[in-house]
């Protein structure tokens, strides 16, 4: 819908710009970046000037705010992402929600810039005065300082506590520690560390799944082994296939249909996806388990798990 910003007279029309309502959407930024980028820049500049208060005429500061949001949109692979990049939650937003999102990003960055320059942030009242009358109903106008405190995992300490107190995340941690068994000294170094800090429960669980002779090797150069082990653990914890393998192992033992004669269970891939995993993710998890020797799966649509494999899978994720 096009609107004239000027009045009805011919003279005003002559100088008036043509304005449009919601000139771009998340979809436009993804698929038609050439056409929608100019409008995105204009919108962000407009908002940045509004929130920058005393810095609103500082071109560098406006650019910093605008650039931050543009960079964010590129880094999450929305801007110019086309059909190649995975859809994000931002693609699902309505236009109004998407604008609110962008507006808030601008607002937060502007506050950040003002803080850096130690300038007072505009009060809502001041902003009202600068605004044109038709923006009075804008629900986005209130300047609220971002308060990360009420966001879950606002600080890493909170997040890490979640990571160790949630059973399934602890299973992943345990699995990653156990995967160090290919390098026994590194595993020993980690077990020793865990013992020293009193994580006896986890140590017991790890030991229960390992061959008894594993800890017979004498340990020299402890810190070196520890460093290598930590690096491997970091990689393992952040690896998608590790996480998926644990999830799939659990599902394989929960959702299977049992053959009464052999004790084997069959699980179609579709069952493993549930509502939250893609087929590709299920396949990645299965590949990981097959690679670890816990399954005999070569891409079949239905996974058959023998009785012995079921025990292995249960041990793989068991946390008791």
């Amino acid at each position: 819908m096009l609107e004239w910003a000027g009045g009805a007279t011919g003279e005003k029309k002559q100088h008036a710009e043509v304005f449009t309502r919601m000139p771009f959407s998340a979809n436009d930024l993804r698929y038609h970046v050439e056409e929608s980028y100019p409008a995105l820049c204009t919108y962000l500049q407009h908002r940045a000037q509004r929130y920058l208060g005393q810095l609103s005429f500082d071109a560098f500061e406006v650019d910093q705010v605008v650039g931050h949001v543009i960079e964010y949109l590129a880094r999450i692979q929305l801007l110019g992402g086309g059909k190649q990049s995975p859809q994000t939650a931002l693609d699902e937003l309505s236009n109004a929600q998407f604008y609110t999102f962008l507006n808030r990003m601008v607002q937060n960055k502007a506050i950040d810039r003002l803080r850096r320059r130690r300038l007072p942030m505009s009060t809502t009242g001041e902003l009202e005065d600068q605004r044109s009358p038709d923006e009075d109903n804008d629900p986005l106008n209130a300047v609220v300082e971002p308060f990360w405190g009420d966001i879950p995992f606002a600080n890493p300490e909170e997040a890490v506590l979640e990571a160790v107190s949630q059973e399934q995340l602890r299973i992943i941690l345990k699995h990653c520690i156990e995967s160090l068994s290919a390098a026994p000294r590194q595993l020993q170094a980690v077990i020793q560390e865990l013992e020293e800090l009193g994580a006896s429960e986890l140590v017991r669980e790890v030991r229960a799944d390992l061959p008894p002779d594993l800890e017979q090797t004498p340990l020299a150069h402890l810190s070196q082994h520890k460093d290598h082990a930590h690096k491997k653990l970091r990689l393992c914890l952040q690896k998608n296939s590790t996480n998926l393998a644990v999830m799939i192992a659990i599902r394989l033992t929960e959702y299977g249909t049992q053959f009464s004669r052999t004790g084997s269970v069959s699980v179609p891939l579709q069952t493993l996806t549930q509502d939250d995993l893609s087929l590709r993710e299920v396949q990645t998890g299965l590949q990981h388990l097959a690679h670890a020797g816990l399954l005999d799966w070569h891409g079949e649509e239905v996974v058959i798990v023998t009785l012995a494999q079921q025990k292995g899978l249960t041990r793989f994720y068991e946390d008791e």
Partner: protein
Amino acid sequence: MSEQFVGTPDPQGQYTPLAQWLYGLLAHGPKEAPTEQVAVGEDVSLPGKDYHAGFYPQLPNFVMALLRQTPGVTTRYAPLFFHLLGCPICHRAYLETYDALRIALADDARPTTTALRLSASASLATTSPKLLVFLCQLLLGQARAILQQAHRDHTDEDAWARELLQQAMQISRYLMQGTLRQRALRDLVEVASLAQRSEIDGPSAQATLSYSALVGAGSSTRGRGVLRRADMMSRSNEQASIDLRSDSLEGNVTQEGELLILRLVDLDATLRGKFLLISVPLGTLLEPVRWLGGNPYAIRSAGPVGADGTLVTPLGSTELSLSKPEDRNLIETLFKKLDISPLEP
């Protein structure tokens, strides 16, 4: 017990030592100190180690799942979750995303009555050149990051990267200043070569001579003079050729009708009398040019190099016109690199 863990969801402190250990482990990985934001106008085509292409794009979905209280969200996004523990940059982006998305979703029920006062006539031609350079660099940087990630994951994302490169090229044609265009596409050839690694009939690495289009600053005094003038003139119609240079050798690309003609002079005596194989490494990135023989990596010269060291040969045809500034910029980008080698040794 550390003070920092007080007030968190482990009232008995059962997991606190383990949490501290895990935090130490994750946070002491390869350290990336949060850097100051790169100013718009400076080079962003080399995303630093602080951009994690495997994790950063997952942030909106992770946050949305948290806001919707999807069961098992931390398990579903466990790798990202563990990554956030040790990466202050991604963690900061997570906080920003959460805050903005929360407000956006909360706003759903309220009608938006604000008319956004944006000019409908806004186009790339009227957009700040600085922001165009910024976007081109971001797109190139993304292409590079995606290719590097694909290399680590043993996947093929060439098509995706090529799409990003094409977009950067298309957008850069609206930059009328050669120096800005040069800056916008500085890494284009290098990133394109990463995407071409897997092509069976990709550009040959054994070129006898490599020419490049003279965009922005030239290497010789003469070149600099010409280009400075060209920058100021903002590409007029009479400049209907693209100058090429390889050290002291020169050449150009002109247009006759739809045909693009390459002219090289003073070629070495060893090349005289021989047919040449011409490669335009960026040639596959733009469809509007129909290359002679169909493969821009292997265009056979129409005739041999003359006794005076001159070669004049058609390269292909296009509806783009060298006399139109934007088309010219696009064609010029294509010739950021042009390699030649003798067809027969």
